[in-house]
């Protein structure tokens, strides 16, 4: 990594970068402000980036503000980033046709996979993607749709130079510095970015952009900005094995406590970069001649999630929250050899009642006999 040349990408070259990517056949996607949040959508020009925008995130709170500094990446994250591009919220898996004799013909649903370049992903997004890769690609069965989209992805990552109140990627070891899975990584300073290629395609891109090396002062300044983001995080998961804390405390009174606050709404699942539960449904045609088998995002907080053989296994909020948290921070280790949590803090931000899983884990780690205020 230290051998890679650090370059200087001025703001005025951002549109050139988008043009080059589009010439290569990529659809360019990037962050914009919409509906009061940072949303990733088609990015046609650098103008559309969230210049001067910063986000204020607290448990159960998200709002955008405008600042005087005209930087494009003063915010941390929005509700979604890479996940909906690789693992679509809803899509057909296969189709079946039935003829007049009742004979069935099953057909895979193939799709044109667009090459997609995503500008402005964060370290937590890369970490979440790497975790989700373990579910859909590196496991016993490969999800071909996810795999194809993943192979056709070009990622321009941007290191965070501020941390939000809910960020704890330092604690999970996943940020704020981007260290893997990107084609190009940028760190913003005044008027531009210190840039570094992370892959052959990334190197080809910087070659095409014909940009100069970054000077030493800029490289140092960029690093100090990322270090500042790392130093200023306040939330953390406990040291030691979080998996053991969870599995050793399955009867802790804290589960009752959180169940009284949790609405079982599933927002946390919707915004989590690693959650992968999905429901398979059947959509038959009205004339009965065909049917489509689809999948769509699901959540372990729904009644249907644990329904089988005529009954619901998790019929209360307490067991649902317990399922979600034990999976995220404990069972994930057994399944995929890593934590399911990458410290992005989205679940804390987007929870309507502001449940903070770092606090929940801290409470579970406490002996139940100790008095709290």
């Amino acid at each position: 990594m230290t051998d890679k040349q650090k370059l200087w990408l001025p703001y005025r070259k951002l549109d050139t970068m988008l043009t080059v990517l589009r010439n290569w056949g990529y659809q360019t996607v990037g962050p914009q402000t919409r509906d009061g949040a940072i949303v990733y959508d088609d990015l046609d020009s650098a103008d559309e980036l969230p210049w001067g925008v910063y986000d204020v995130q607290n448990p159960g709170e998200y709002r955008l503000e405008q600042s005087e500094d005209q930087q494009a990446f003063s915010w941390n994250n929005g509700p979604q980033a890479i996940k909906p591009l690789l693992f679509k919220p809803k899509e057909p898996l296969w189709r079946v046709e039935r003829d007049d004799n009742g004979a069935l013909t099953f057909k895979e649903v193939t799709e044109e996979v667009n090459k997609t370049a995503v500008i402005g992903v964060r370290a937590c997004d890369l970490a979440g993607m790497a975790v989700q890769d373990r579910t859909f690609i590196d496991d016993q069965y490969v999800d071909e749709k996810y795999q194809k989209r993943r192979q056709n992805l070009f990622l321009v990552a941007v290191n965070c130079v501020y941390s939000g109140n809910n960020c704890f990627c330092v604690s999970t070891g996943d940020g704020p510095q981007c260290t893997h899975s990107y084609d190009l990584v940028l760190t913003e300073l005044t008027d531009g970015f210190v840039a570094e290629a992370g892959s052959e395609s990334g190197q080809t891109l910087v070659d095409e952009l014909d940009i100069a090396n970054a000077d030493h002062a800029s490289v140092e300044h960029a690093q100090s900005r990322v270090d500042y983001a790392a130093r200023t995080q306040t939330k953390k998961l406990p040291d030691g094995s979080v998996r053991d804390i969870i599995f050793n405390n399955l009867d802790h009174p804290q589960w009752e406590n959180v169940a009284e606050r949790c609405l079982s709404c599933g927002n946390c699942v919707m915004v989590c970069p690693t959650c992968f539960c999905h429901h398979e449904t059947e959509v038959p045609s009205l004339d009965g001649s065909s049917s489509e088998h689809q999948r769509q995002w699901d959540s372990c907080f729904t009644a249907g999630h644990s329904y089988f053989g005529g009954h619901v296994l998790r019929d209360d909020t307490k067991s649902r929250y317990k399922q979600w948290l034990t999976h995220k921070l404990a069972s994930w280790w057994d399944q995929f050899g890593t934590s399911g949590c990458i410290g992005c803090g989205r679940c804390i931000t987007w929870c309507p009642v502001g449940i903070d899983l770092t606090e929940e884990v801290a409470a579970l780690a406490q002996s139940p006999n100790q008095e709290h205020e």
Partner: protein
Amino acid sequence: MVKRPANLPQQAEIVHRDEEAPKVFSLHLRFTESSVHNAYHFYPGQFNMVYLFGVGEVPISIVSDPRHYSLYQHTVRIVGRITQGLSKLKQGDKLGIRGPYGHGWPMETAKGKDVVIITGGIGCAPTVSAIRYMMNRRHDYGRIMIVQGVKHSDDLLFRPYYEHWAQQPDTEVRLTADKPGPHWPWDHRLATEIIHELGIIRPQNTVAMMCGPEGMMLACVKPLVERGLVEDNIYLSMERNMECALGHCGHCQFGGQFICKDGPVFAYPTLKPLLGRKGF
């Protein structure tokens, strides 16, 4: 690790259909394409995702002996929409099958050992394949002891099979019903009590295979261990909501295990920490 792409169902047709008990029926199937049929291999304890056109898929274990079948058999209990729809299918009707999935019974591990099979209700179906397998290779296995419990005597499935197996050498069959009808010739106690009477003569070399309501399986572990069985040799077939059968949709999780691909058959020690806990 074998990587396979996500599977597509293949068409199979119902060659014949039997009513086994109130709300329980068997479908005897053949893949329409003979090349698919000939290439299809399964192991006792594995399951297929059975697709009913326009309605959806359900996981159903395969009841046939993997080496002695021309048709393969699924025995289904009506519990919801899809199984209700499957119950209305007739000879000649078509459905979709994808599979087989999962880890089956430890037939290799059990070779040369005595085997105890304990099942309750429709749980007997996943073990029928294993029993048939052993009966067709009788000398590869030692004593076979079968306990099948039902709620009501009318619920007994496969009576002819059990009566046939009871005649086999070195084989003990114990049927029991909580609510026996007037002509019920067998037992009415719980499986847990019957375990104490089984002819287990070399417990360290006895493998137990169980399938049925979770509470029943958990309750049976204690008497089996009291009879001297080793926990590692006690196997349970688990059931959860399975939708994809590939370990991707997340519904079938039991703690860190995906029932569809890490199971459905598990050695008891794997399940022990969470078995019986509410919500898992």
